[in-house]
């Protein structure tokens, strides 16, 4: 399931709900990404996130289908915030359930690389030294490239 929303969410409550729906899975991996309060030396006062409504969801749904084709996973949950966020607030939460842990770990890792480098979100940091639209770090592109080499 994919949920893109401008409303805050509670990762613990989402994990509980996901867990209850995935009654037969032995392994559940989750990833929570939150707004950091620092960008280098500067203080971050807020983050603004936008997406391409409809298109972003459709592209993530395609990535989700790739995950089901590639790994033996039972269920996937992707929650992504848009709008204005404060430091410490959850931005993204990914849960994957599977019979065994290796598949759950890999699929969650893969989904995060997709969300960081390919999903059509744009994020602006509002800092005490100005505003800046963020681009993926070199490390993010390297992480994402791991999955290509695998194939």
């Amino acid at each position, binding site marked *: 399931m994919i949920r893109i929303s401008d409303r805050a969410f509670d990762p613990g409550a989402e994990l509980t709900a996901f867990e209850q729906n995935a009654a037969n899975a032995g392994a559940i991996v989750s990833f929570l990404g939150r707004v950091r309060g620092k960008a280098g030396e500067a203080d971050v006062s807020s983050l603004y996130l936008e997406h391409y409504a*409809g*298109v972003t969801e459709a592209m993530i749904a395609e990535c989700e289908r790739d995950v089901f084709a590639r790994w033996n996973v039972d269920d996937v949950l992707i929650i992504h915030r848009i709008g204005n966020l404060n430091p410490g607030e959850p931005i993204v939460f990914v849960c994957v359930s599977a019979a065994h842990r290796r598949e759950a770990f890999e699929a969650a890792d893969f989904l995060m690389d997709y969300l960081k480098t390919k999903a*059509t979100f*744009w994020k*602006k940091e509002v800092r005490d030294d100005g505003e800046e639209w963020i681009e993926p770090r070199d490390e993010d592109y390297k992480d994402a490239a791991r999955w290509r080499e695998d194939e």
Partner: protein
Amino acid sequence: MARLLFFGKLGDLAGGRLHERVLPDGVATVDQLIAAITAEDEALGEALAAPSVRFIVNEKMADAGVAISDSDEIAFLPPVSGG
């Protein structure tokens, strides 16, 4: 009218994410649209022409040569940054 969408820093440069407008005379491709915009607003035009900018026409990835008309939605995407 065509729907032009500018995301991220391009939206800031364009003064808004959505611009509904009639395509200028002689504009039949994304490339030509960028040239026409550059004539109106050089900073925006140059930003749209950057190699890192991708195009989505009617919700499908497209290249700069793709044909466009006044019934299309044309989106300009700078490098993404989700998660």
